[in-house]
């Protein structure tokens, strides 16, 4: 068992600028390398206006379209000269821009990043072309049936909250993106503000080197307006089911979603759901052994709950070998969770889940970039890196009774949405 040392053991300096910008500098042994992460606490969760699904992700693309001082070509030339690995990603709750480069590039990184976060400027023509790159990204994903399945799951499971749409957005909204130039400026003005951004700098650098640079380049950035409220989701009252047709080859697939608690460092339900995911769906679980190894009805099985700001879904995904077995697989999953709710597990098994989770987490922290990636999620969700150790402390407090309780509480028929991919069905126009 891993000794109860800190899960996130790296020396960290924290500074908040007068304009609300928070900066975390994490010392990590990565000779000559620095990971520079700009975390914007905006994601598809914030897309509250109708017709604007996918906009946070689209805007992430626009952030690479330059400023007056560093037009796209000059920005790209600067990135290229550093030999940096530079990109960004958007999820339901966050947009994260990341640069991995040599430490000597740090002054340039701070200069160009502060510049684009404060002074982004692009033409409508550039905006339209980028909108079509986003459509290309949607089309790229559309050859994987998980994309329409996940779309259907969230669209059915949610009635009110913005988790109803996926991060890339509904196709109809993506197709309309070229017409949303004015809204894009409003979006930037609203969310790309220092009090909604956190900088995370990890690697072979010191706070003494980093902080003065950040003060100089971000200090004059003005706070932003209040954000629109995200409407809460009322409790689901009945089971929902959807069938996704698929033209062409595929294994049949089953995707289940159960409304689950938001990520929390204090709510035991949140940690107990993580433990339940391991107990029921890990490769060593009785369910995996039965469906995948012994009966060989399922080719792939996974289940879990991603960390979210607001209550999201605990999802279960199975690729089933034959369509006729899908109902059996679905029923068996419910029975296994019900069995856990009734019988619980041995203390030893629970302890092994905690041990595995700690080892798996430690294994992730092998490079400056990976440390920054892990840290960025916790910062976006909670604004704090101590949330990492709080999470593991909470996990260690989960008892068998907690697991039994959440198994009974959340995995009810009226709380679930069921999506089945049916490769046998004729294609229906979308």
């Amino acid at each position, binding site marked *: 068992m891993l000794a109860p040392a800190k899960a996130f053991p790296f020396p960290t300096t924290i500074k908040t600028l007068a304009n609300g910008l928070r900066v975390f500098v994490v010392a990590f042994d990565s000779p000559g390398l620095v990971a520079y992460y700009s975390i914007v606490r905006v994601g598809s969760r914030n897309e509250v206006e109708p017709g604007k699904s996918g906009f946070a992700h689209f805007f992430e693309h626009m952030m690479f379209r330059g400023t007056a001082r560093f037009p796209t070509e000059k920005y790209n030339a600067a990135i290229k000269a550093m030999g940096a690995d530079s990109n960004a990603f958007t999820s339901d709750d966050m947009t994260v821009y990341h640069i991995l480069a*040599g430490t000597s590039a740090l002054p340039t990184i701070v200069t160009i990043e502060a510049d684009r976060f404060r002074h982004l400027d692009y033409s409508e023509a550039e905006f339209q072309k980028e909108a079509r790159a986003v459509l290309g990204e949607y089309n790229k994903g559309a050859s994987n049936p998980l994309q329409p399945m996940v779309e259907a799951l969230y669209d059915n499971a949610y009635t009110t909250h913005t988790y109803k749409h996926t991060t890339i957005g509904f196709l109809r909204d993506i197709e309309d993106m070229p017409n949303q130039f004015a809204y894009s400026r409003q979006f930037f003005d609203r969310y790309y503000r220092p009090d909604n951004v956190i900088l995370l700098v990890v690697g072979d650098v010191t706070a003494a080197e980093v902080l003065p640079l950040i003060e100089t380049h971000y200090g004059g950035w003005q706070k932003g307006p209040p954000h629109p409220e995200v409407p809460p989701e009322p409790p689901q009252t009945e089971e929902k089911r959807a069938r996704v047709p698929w*033209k062409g080859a595929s294994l049949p697939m089953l995707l289940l979603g159960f409304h689950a608690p938001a990520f929390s460092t204090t709510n035991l339900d949140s940690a107990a759901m993580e433990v339940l995911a391991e107990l029921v769906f890990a490769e060593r679980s009785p369910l995996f052994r039965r469906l995948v190894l012994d009966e060989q009805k399922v080719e792939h099985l996974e289940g879990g709950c991603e960390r979210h700001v607001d209550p999201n879904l605990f999802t279960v995904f199975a690729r089933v070998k034959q369509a006729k077995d899908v109902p059996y697989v679905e029923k068996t999953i419910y029975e296994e969770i019900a069995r856990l709710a009734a019988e619980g597990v041995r203390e030893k098994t629970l302890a092994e889940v905690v041990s595995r989770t700690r080892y798996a987490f430690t294994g992730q922290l092998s490079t400056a970039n990976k440390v920054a990636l892990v840290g960025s999620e916790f910062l976006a969700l909670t604004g704090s890196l101590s949330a990492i150790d709080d999470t593991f402390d909470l996990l260690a407090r989960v008892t068998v009774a907690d697991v039994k309780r959440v198994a009974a509480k959340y995995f009810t028929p009226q709380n679930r949405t069921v999506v089945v991919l049916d490769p046998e069905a004729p294609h229906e126009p979308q």
Partner: protein
Amino acid sequence: MSLSAAALSVPSQVAETSPAHPIRMIRLPSPASPLVTVRLLFQVGAADDLPGKEGLAHLTAAMLGEAGTLKRTWSEVLDALYPMAAEIHVYGDKDAFVFTSTVHRDNLDAFATLLAEQILTPRFSTEDFTRLKQDALDGLTKTLRGNDDENLGKQALATVMYARHPYGHPTLGTVAGLAAITLDDVKDFYARHFTQDRLMVGVAGGYPESFPDAYAARFAALPAQGQPRPQLAPVPARKGMELLLVEKSALGNAISMGVPIDVTRSDADFCPLALAASYLGEHRTFTGVLMISMRQKRGLNYGDYAYVENFIQDGWTTFPLPNIPRRRQHFEIWLRPVPPKSAGFAIRQAIYETDKLIREGIPAAGFEATRTFLSNYVNLWAQDGSRRLGYAMDAVIYGRDIIADLLARLPTMTKDEVDRAVRKHLSTKDLAIVVVGDGVRELAAAVSSGAATPIVYDTRDTPAEVLAEDKHIESYPLPVAKAQIRIVSAAGLFEK
């Protein structure tokens, strides 16, 4: 290939050997690290598949890495791995398979013992065989054919580029090949190919000093020598461009194109070619010529990249997967899905940009910018112990370390060197092109008639200089003879 003076100055990576056994070993100590990576690389791959048993190498590797041992069922192995958060990753390609994991040093002995059992004492049970063979068949006929158009295009491209060659079928196998494989075939293939002379053991991280030697010695229980490794046959020559159109329902057209080349990392010309490919389009970066001209300026798609060796992305990173060495390589362009109505234009633009590089040479500014970029970027290829180890092992196989080679040669590399290598090795004349998606019949008709294939914009205010270039590109020569255009359904691919 001739070697430049600079290239000769780069030391080759040499593996350690022991007088007790022929197993090669690479160790990369990093005493402060709590993690240890083990990589067991066998120089056996899909190129070793027996004719009519395509998929045998992959299935055998799966029966070692994803199945039970004499001592434990696979379920029991998974149970033992679980508390350590250890997983055995098995992957491979035409010439090698690797079994690897990174574990906490607390768990090294227990994990290493489990992994050794997997390789030395496989269970070869009927249950595991049935499961893994069906997984391979489903992977080929369901997942590849129907769930991932870009990978489908890449695999289909290999069947054209390497037709009638051991590299010409998917590593996963073919439908007929998999159907023909018996458990006895797997046992026999294991005995002949998973042998000491084909094995390299790699260990990196915070391991005890005595661990690597002792661990490598455990594999002396394998047969010392297996079936002699035959010379790889030359790639049969093709004449002219070929267009394979894979008809299937899809929102976009995924496009891959490529042609075999005579250069691998073992050759001096690889470094200048790598620079040229990086200039055209380093994987998942925004500054390549293809990316800027196709995505940024025209909004054609999500991404456009170029390669001078087989490329598989390492997980969710931007970087190439290590330990997929090949004896033959190819030049490849990957265009992410484009609107079907603009697919002909996209193909022409990729060829136009490549031909321009070959014909005019790399622009001086582009050469300097790419050289500076690569001088820093290659340092990111081996950030952690696992990847560093993978590259070090690849260096043994190729006889040259690509990272060290680039770092040593880039400072003195010249534009002329790049231009010469490009002119010598790259050509679009015999390009194989694969398009996956809807609307391919219209594309076939346009290409065979020689008609222009204009880009279709639904966005405003495209700059005049881009529109002027579009007129040129839409009619750029795309000389594919009618007999060299084939339309197939996805369901018909990889049958045998």
